[in-house]
């Protein structure tokens, strides 16, 4: 899941000045202003600006998480990109194609071939069994019952639901239902995977289990993912990059580490101050450059390792530990004192309070 964001490939999804404005006056006002949007003006006239000038890219294989509290417009943004809602203004490109200009037929074609989506409330068809639900996207595409059911049986295996093929959704627990939702969204092997708060309706323990499952799947499948959540910890845990939204505006879009280290606004900082750094930051951020006279231990850690996972190792060593890159080349070292200051240091005082 190492970030491919830096690769100079073309983005899978690109949003360019996307607005979504709700309200009866929206259309008329837009016409009178000639397509130029001034969000404040719309709000004065009783419109609600759901998405306010969203511009960003998602690269192939990248997992972008849109994080925000309820009413921040995160789900609306996702629905604009999947065109479940029509954006009011702006361009949205999927694989270079302007999807807002697609007609209904082409849109259906796009959804049948490239997109899968998972919903917060699972949105399974209540009258169909697990197997039929998973086979559904294939069947509407015209795949024969036999082939679609065979494929669905494979998917059941993938999401570890074997033995429950003929259950109805109402007979499954929340976690199992969402597994079905995931299997259904993946049945057509989409390139782009939308997940709208997929784990929010689940109990904390199940949520953790599902997140692990999700990471496992993603490590196998490497889809381009737009993932919406209101849970900042979930975002940090899963994301390659996070877009934090507030009142329809993307406040900050960056990697988890950068967001934690350099929140751009008071609003973002509020989320990050509760976050234990060692769970987010990579060894890289506390690494010191290699100096010749430095004495290092034989122990090695990877520069991409999350600090928490290697803290014990570093602390147990009386000498600095060397840091290696993907290729195994030593690129620096890390000292126990650095890790200690990060774990128990000044900007982390609340941790002590939490622990007691």
């Amino acid at each position, binding site marked *: 899941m190492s970030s491919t964001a830096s690769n100079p490939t073309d983005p899978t999804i690109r949003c360019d000045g996307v607005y979504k404005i709700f309200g009866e006056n929206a259309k008329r006002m837009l016409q009178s202003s000639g397509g130029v949007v001034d969000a404040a003006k719309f709000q004065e006239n009783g419109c609600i600006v759901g998405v306010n000038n969203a511009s960003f890219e998602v690269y192939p294989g990248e997992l972008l998480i849109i994080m925000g509290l309820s009413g921040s417009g995160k789900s609306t943004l996702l*629905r604009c990109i*999947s065109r*479940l809602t029509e954006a009011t203004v702006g361009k949205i490109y999927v694989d270079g194609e302007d999807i807002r200009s697609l007609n209904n037929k082409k849109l*259906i*074609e796009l*959804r*049948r071939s490239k*997109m*899968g*989506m998972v*919903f*917060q*409330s*699972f*949105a*399974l*068809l*209540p*009258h*169909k*069994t697990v*197997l*039929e639900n998973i086979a*559904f*996207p294939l069947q*509407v*595409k015209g795949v024969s*019952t036999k082939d679609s*059911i065979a494929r669905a049986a494979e998917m059941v295996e993938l999401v570890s639901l074997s033995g429950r*093929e*003929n259950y109805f959704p109402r007979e499954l627990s929340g976690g199992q239902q969402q597994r079905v*939702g995931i299997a*259904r*969204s993946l049945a*057509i092997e989409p390139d782009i995977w*939308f997940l709208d708060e997929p784990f929010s309706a689940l109990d904390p323990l199940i949520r953790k289990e599902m997140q692990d499952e999700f990471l496992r799947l993603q490590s196998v499948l490497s889809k381009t993912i737009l993932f919406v959540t209101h849970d900042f910890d979930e975002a940090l845990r899963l994301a390659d990059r996070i877009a934090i939204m507030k009142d329809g505006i993307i406040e900050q879009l960056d990697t988890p580490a950068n967001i934690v280290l350099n929140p751009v606004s008071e609003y973002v900082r509020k989320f990050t101050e509760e976050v234990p750094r060692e769970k987010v930051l990579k060894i890289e951020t506390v690494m010191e450059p290699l100096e010749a006279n430095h004495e290092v231990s034989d122990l090695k850690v990877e520069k991409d390792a999350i600090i928490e996972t290697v803290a014990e190792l570093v602390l147990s060593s009386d000498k600095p530990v060397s840091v290696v890159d993907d290729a195994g080349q030593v690129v620096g070292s890390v000292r126990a004192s650095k890790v200690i200051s990060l774990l128990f240091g000044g900007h982390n005082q609340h941790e002590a309070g939490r622990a007691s």
Partner: protein
Amino acid sequence: MMATLQKSKPLQLLLLIVVFILLCLLVPANEGNWLWRFPTLLKSLPVVINNSVDYLMFDWWLIDVWDPDIEEYEEKPLMRQVTRSISGFVLFLIEFVRELMLGGVKTIVTFTSWDWATENPWARWPGLPWTVVTGGVVILGYALSGVGLACFVGFAFTYIAVFGQWEPSMQTLSFVLIAAPTAILIGLLLGVWSYKSKTVEAVLNPILNVAQIMPHFSYLIPVMVFFGIGDHAGAIATIIFATPPMVRLTNLGLKKVPAEVAEAGLMNGCTDWQLMRRVLIPSARRDILLGVNQVIMQCLAMVVIASLIGAKGLGNDLLIALNRLRIGLALEIGVCIVLIAIVLDRLSLAWANKQTDYFADQSFKERHKYTLWFAGVFAAGVALAGIGQLIFKEGFNYLYLIPHNKGITTEPFWQAGVDWMWDTFFYALKGFNEWLIVDVLIPVKKAFLAMPAIATFTLVMGIGFIVGGIRSALIVGGYLLFIAMTEWWDRALITSYLMTMAVLISGVIGIVVGTLCAQNATATRILLAWCDTFQTFPSFIYLIPVMMLFGVTDTSVLIAIVVYATIPAARYTVVGLRSVPSELHDAGSMSGVNRFQRLFSIELPLSFPHMALGINQTVVFALAMVIIGALIGTDDLGQLILGSLSDRQGVGNGLVLGFCVAFIGLAIDQILRTWANKRKAALGID
């Protein structure tokens, strides 16, 4: 003073009642005084309707039609041609199903000619032996649901055959098998259309409101004029009557489908059609099935009423039996109707819930096992009928068809029971009957009739105002004004009196019984099961036992209404009380309430809105039954509607009378519903 009055609803009500009583006392009973009775400005409305219908049927848009008999083009009105072809088509379908079961030649004639059929006497479908039909339905029941349903339908059909009701039952069945699917289909289409288009919904809504509360009889008259008399007319009236709940429930169900499910369908790449057929409609199936169930019930409820305009079958027989006071026979026929209703209901439910098994790798024999079974049953049945031909030499082949009223009958038993009851309880029954009529019903009826129109208006509009402000007051006033300006205000008062009495009694019984049963889970379950069963019975079935006891009197009608209308009152009370969240129970218990305090301070206030809707249903049920009571003699609007059935100029009268009944119901509906919604909003429940 004014300020307190504006705030305090009880005070407003008190003032209203004082004004009402003053008006009653002060306005003199004088036909010329418009405060006593409003001028009948709408008196000519029925005539206008009659003339328009006549014009539509006989003079509007003449077209040339080829007449094969005189081999010439003839000018005929379009409307008549259209209704004629619809009639013909419906009749063909009914005959087709009917002849499949009972045998006949009409279907063959349709495809050939009478001459050909006469020349070829072999070309005659003999009809299926009852054993084959019963066996077929048993297999169907088994295939759809299992042994339980198979046993039940087997029992039901055997009962019908053995009691000698096979022929009329199959006639009724053929008529229902055409009417119900048509009503379901039309209802589904309109429901989907009104879901898709706000305009359609806005147009349909008021029509459905009126249609659902119009008395059954009112549909018969226009249908008779447009489509004539016979099975097809009965079927068409039934379709018109049975469709509205289907439209309602389809629309409701579709609206209740969670937005995310529809979105999931879209993201899975559904086209509009796929979304509707494979996602929305199946997801809404709970409500849609409720609609299907309602349609079947309405169809069976119409069986007797449709027989008034020529539908053959059980309904007709039942009506005749009732008129001859052959209670035992009526009871047996009634049971047949109820059995058919339950069988159709269960089969349709089982069909909708059926599951497919994808993994069973089946051989040809397994895949077609039901077809093979049926072939076996068919062969066996035909063989049995052949053997029967040899055994029963004197006319009736009981293994082929048990002729009408030649089966087992328990009539003597029931008749003896009735006689015994009359002998034993004669004085008690008579005494009760007389007391009720002389000391209760007649005084109340007189009191209703002694109300000046202006007082009625003040009371009803005043209540409307207190409950829902000026808007509600105007709406109910409008409904009343229509009735007041026809010449049937007094009749409407009589209808209202019967209905009011019945609703009061039903309401009290229903709420008390419901409240008691709601205290205990088992009692709740039993009561709900009872309600389900009794609701399956077509309304006129209730007339049979009360006629046994009280003969043809207002008492019978009142008791039948009360029994029938208590069902929704009890059901809504139980459901309302039972749906009070358990947290509130716990919160109450922790505040130290005892059982009665909990009931009176927590549960009842919270379920009042629900109960109000129950009373609303009670009103609808009671109104329907009051009008059906006309079949055994009342002197209200219902009797007039029944009368206009046999009147050449009956369309206008029938429709306007129907509207009068509907508007009584709608006025009460407006008040109760507004109140319930306001209470719900105030309590934050829905």
